[in-house]
């Protein structure tokens, strides 16, 4: 079952994994909502997060910070945060910040699902 929180759609794909469809923007206006939604998932046992950026036109420093926060939370528990269907505006942020060194990227959500299975 899918849950929609603010701009985000959260789709469970396994007992410990979800896809979060980021939507149009992850920035200072909704980063706190993203963080709260992700924390709720972690509390319920989710460890692997696929972030789908296919429709995302804005990822700013605060949005990226909320993703770092999630990464800090799940990585000690062997969890993963990976990026899928990265749009050009998001790729520009990834390149600027060299975060491809931290978050694996996949061309599609399906590809990410296969990889984290």
């Amino acid at each position: 079952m899918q849950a929609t929180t603010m701009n985000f759609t959260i789709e469970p794909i396994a007992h410990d994994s979800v896809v979060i469809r980021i939507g149009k923007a992850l920035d200072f206006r909704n980063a706190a909502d993203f963080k709260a939604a992700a924390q709720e998932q972690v509390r319920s046992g989710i460890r692997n997060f696929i972030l789908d950026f296919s429709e995302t036109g804005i990822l700013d420093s605060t949005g990226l910070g909320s993703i770092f926060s999630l990464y800090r939370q799940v990585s000690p528990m062997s969890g993963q945060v990976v990026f899928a269907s990265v749009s050009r505006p998001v790729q520009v942020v990834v390149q600027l910040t060299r975060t491809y060194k931290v978050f694996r990227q996949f061309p599609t959500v399906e590809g990410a699902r296969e990889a984290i299975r």
Partner: protein
Amino acid sequence: METTRQSFKRLDGVIDELHDLFESWEQEGALLSHLDLDTIHLFRLAVHEWVANLVQHACFDGRSPEVTMDVIPNGRRVRCIIEDNSFGFPMHERLDVQREALKPYPERGMGLLMLNAATEYFEYTESESGRQRLEFTVSADSDPCLNIPF
């Protein structure tokens, strides 16, 4: 595209206004004639970070916010001047503090650093009329990097 000036009066909707503007420029192909798409996105990010900083932190002390943005394409570069009527702040000191304080996988404190990293030339001053003035250029020929500790 010729030099363009945009004015913004409301901080609550300014981010949406700004991105609508960029989308209309992209659809018209105006900025695309001078710059590649990735450089436009980098420019858009720099503008977003600055305006987001104004929305979140600028002190207007009861005055109605007035923000103007001049965009001046110049070959493979674009120059931008954003002026506002806030009180301003010691930008370069703040940048130094943020640079020093940056922790691995930081949650906050990357905005000004990201703006600084994305831009080739970067200056923050008070104009003769007492307005705060940020001027920067973004270049298609650079490979900017914000060095975040991982």
